């Protein structure tokens, strides 16, 4: 992980004026650095949908979306707070030499079920290779393959998508 991050930073450093001992202060134009960084910038879109228990048609009863700018190696964090649940998702993209993206993510879920008063906690780390625009689905509460257990309970699904940052016209 750390090696991947250095790979991104080092080429930028080499491209800039190297810090050397000069007799005077040197002013640096940050514009070049900005351009270079923007060429590597990424837009991560995270959408969340709450689905009814008998979601045959995939009709969400609620959705939300957030779009964030980031750079390779810098994490994006999203927290979802519900009545009986808290979901914390951290997503860090890395660009590999092949040009493909590696998504490293951690999902943490705190859930209190009505039966026990205790709060259940789960944490999972993920490492998923993706391409730009490819959708990644995250089910913090899992996916049930059988009959819905109860009419009153809902599930939540997140979708993560990464594209290169583009300046708006």
């Amino acid at each position, binding site marked *: 992980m750390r090696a991947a991050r250095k790979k991104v930073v080092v080429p930028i450093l080499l491209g800039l004026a190297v810090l050397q001992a000069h007799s005077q202060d040197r*002013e640096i134009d940050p514009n070049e650095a900005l351009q270079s*960084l*923007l060429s590597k910038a990424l837009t991560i879109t995270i959408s969340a949908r709450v689905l009814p228990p008998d979601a045959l048609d995939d009709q969400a009863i609620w959705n939300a979306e957030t779009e964030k*700018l980031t750079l390779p190696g810098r994490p994006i964090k999203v*927290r979802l707070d519900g009545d009986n649940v808290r979901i914390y998702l951290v997503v860090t993209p890395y660009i590999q030499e092949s040009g493909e993206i590696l998504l490293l993510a951690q999902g943490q879920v705190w859930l209190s079920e009505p039966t026990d008063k205790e709060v259940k906690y789960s944490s999972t780390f993920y490492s998923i290779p993706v391409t730009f625009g490819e959708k990644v689905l995250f089910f913090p*509460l899992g996916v049930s393959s059988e009959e819905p*257990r109860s009419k009153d*309970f*809902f599930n939540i699904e997140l979708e993560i998508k990464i594209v290169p940052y583009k300046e708006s016209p």
Partner: protein
Amino acid sequence: MCPDNGILSAYLDGEIDAPWNKAIAEHLASCDLCRAVFRRLEETHRVLQSDEAPEWTEAMDRVRLNLGSRAAGVLGRFPLWKRRLPVPVPVAALVAALLLFLGVSLAFTLLRSNVGLVKITLAPAGGTEIQIAAPISNLESLLKSLGGEDMTHEDIITLPKNVRLLTSGQQLMGTEAEFLRKKK
């Protein structure tokens, strides 16, 4: 005799003058129906008031910056945020911090302006001096985040109320294609 419900709403807003406001207060004390109406109006008012005020600092900074660059003469000089860091900071790291912390539009305006709003000077002794001439809130946080990897604030999304979520199994993450394959 009960007042018009609109009057009760106006009463809630303090728009009814004396002596009529006193008359309404007395009426509310004795009339269950009107009191119920009034309570509902009060509750709606309370909910509207308690709705979280939107996050405005970024917008405020952006607009201020734009206003400032429009008429620097009229408004006077910007306050200067000036810090001397004892260690050399790679310009890229600083620019990245500005980019992620302030967002693209603000970073653009700052870094690309030819008014010289951002100055980064490397001192021969090895330190870095940063000057940002713009009234941006929270630049101290930017400073703290320099060098650290963690400068993004988390987005907090509130899920709809009264919707109880139940776990159907372990958390899962994967590409959409993988999930579709599994379904079949």
